[in-house]
């Protein structure tokens, strides 16, 4: 039983670890990976806690997560496309760190 909470806590850990990487890592590919890890964390929490309804597992969170995985791959494809477009115009695939407002 408590294993479900363990998995949920790992989910929390993945979410916050991804958040940290999203903030501190400069390369866009790393940011995209970070968002994917955050997503996995949320999904893990959703499904793990759905296991608390014994004897039958609650499948509604599972259906939500399948929906979420599809959204995640769509968003990843879009993000990779944008990243490649960006690195065509300026090498390095990073966001201009210091956005001056008047550019």
């Amino acid at each position, binding site marked *: 039983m408590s294993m479900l909470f363990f998995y949920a806590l790992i989910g929390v850990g993945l979410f916050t670890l991804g958040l940290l990487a999203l903030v501190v890592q400069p390369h866009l590919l790393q940011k995209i990976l970070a968002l994917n890890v955050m997503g996995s964390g949320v999904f893990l*929490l959703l499904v793990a806690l759905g296991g608390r309804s014994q004897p039958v597992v609650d499948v509604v969170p599972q259906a939500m997560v399948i929906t979420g995985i599809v959204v995640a791959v769509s968003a990843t494809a879009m993000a990779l496309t944008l990243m490649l477009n960006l690195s065509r115009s300026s090498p390095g695939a990073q966001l201009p760190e210091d956005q001056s407002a008047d550019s």
Partner: protein
Amino acid sequence: MGAQLIQVDWAVVLIMLPLSAAMLGFLLPGMARNIGLLAALLILFTVVGLGWQLTQTGVYSHVAGGWLAPLGIQLHADGFSLLMLATSAIVGVAVSIYSTGYFKAADDQRFWPTWLLLWAALNALFLAADVFNLYVTLELLGLSAVTLASLTGSKDSVSAAMRYLLSTLLGSLAFLLGIGLLYHQYGSVDIAILSERVNDSTVSWAALGLITAGLALKTALFPFHFWLPPAHASAPAPVSALLSALVVKASFYILLRLWLGLFDFQQDSTVANMLGILGATAVLWGSIQALRQIRLKMLVAYSTVAQIGYLFLAFPLAQTGGNRVWYAVAYLMLSHALAKAAMFLVAGNMMLFGGHDRIVNLDRVVQRLPVTVAAFGLAGVSIMGLPPSGGFIAKWLLLEAALAQGHWGIAGIMMLGGILAAAYVFKVLGYAFIPSPVPHQAVSVPARMQWMALLLATLAIMAGFVAQPLMQLIGIGALFDSTGSMP
């Protein structure tokens, strides 16, 4: 005839119509523009139908799939939904017509299907009564908004769109984690059921924090506004209008609905005060930044940051100020949407006209584009909050509440924000009158692009004259009157 029409599920049509049109436009790229224009007019007509239905029979709800909550998903339309749907329809039709002049035929297949999907997402979002359904609509909305923001393909717009995409995905994930926690504590994703069950618990607070933070990021509340100015300023003008007028409002709409429905367990909390402080900072910061801008579109974008701040000023005021404050917020959402869309369309016209949008080089556009400059002036009146505009009514109600409760700080911030808004609006108008040292070669601007800007600006002013009936319409379902209970 009337008896039958009242039975029609207008709300469902509002979702299916733009979706079908988007698919048709995707299938037949050559006809995307005509399909889109037809859909836009039909959506406006459908919103009128829904409005008439609501005034006759009250709150509308629909049980999707025939499965009652908590198992199934329900749709719900009250006065607040209607207001947002109508705002989207009006701005949407105007922007659609405007865009026929703005985009070349080659860009049609890139613009129209995405814009129709965005419209479908907006309508579905305003009709949702289920937090997971809200998450799906939020994703559809965010991803289509990013796509539209990247449409010019310039270096600025691509990097702005990238930042926008990362921000919007982060916001959605925080929102999803929040509703996941709520579901696992309270066993439902239906707002009405949740509102009965949610109580003052650790999980409620965690969900409140995650959902508020995620939606504040999407709404671009200070200090989460970093993505907004570049994204809104580098997008094509009709897209900027849609993003500023509608897309940021959609996440605020969810925040407000959940705040009233779910998070009323903490009526007198510091969270509301904190949101108020961030809102106040946004008003000042956004206005000052707007004043400092060299480019017109950046100025208008920073003005959005400031105007979003006003929306959040309502949270501390509502603790004792009651329903009038929320009516003011709803009114502000409407009038800002109209005025801001008009301003971005004006910026698009000036850019097309002179080939740039540097404010100091506007070079007597007032004589050459009188309709456009008039639109900017009228929209500016509403943004500043001068009578008799819609913006005046909204800000007056807020100011009244602030003064009645002795919130002198908020009152002061609002006045200061108004003065700063006047300063940046008149800065633009001033340069529009004087000749610039660098003359520009003028390109003629199609009349419909000018008149659409003027139409929206005029409507923003007109909103000030119909306050009474509008308030009645917003009041359908009494969302704001009985704080704490969702019908």
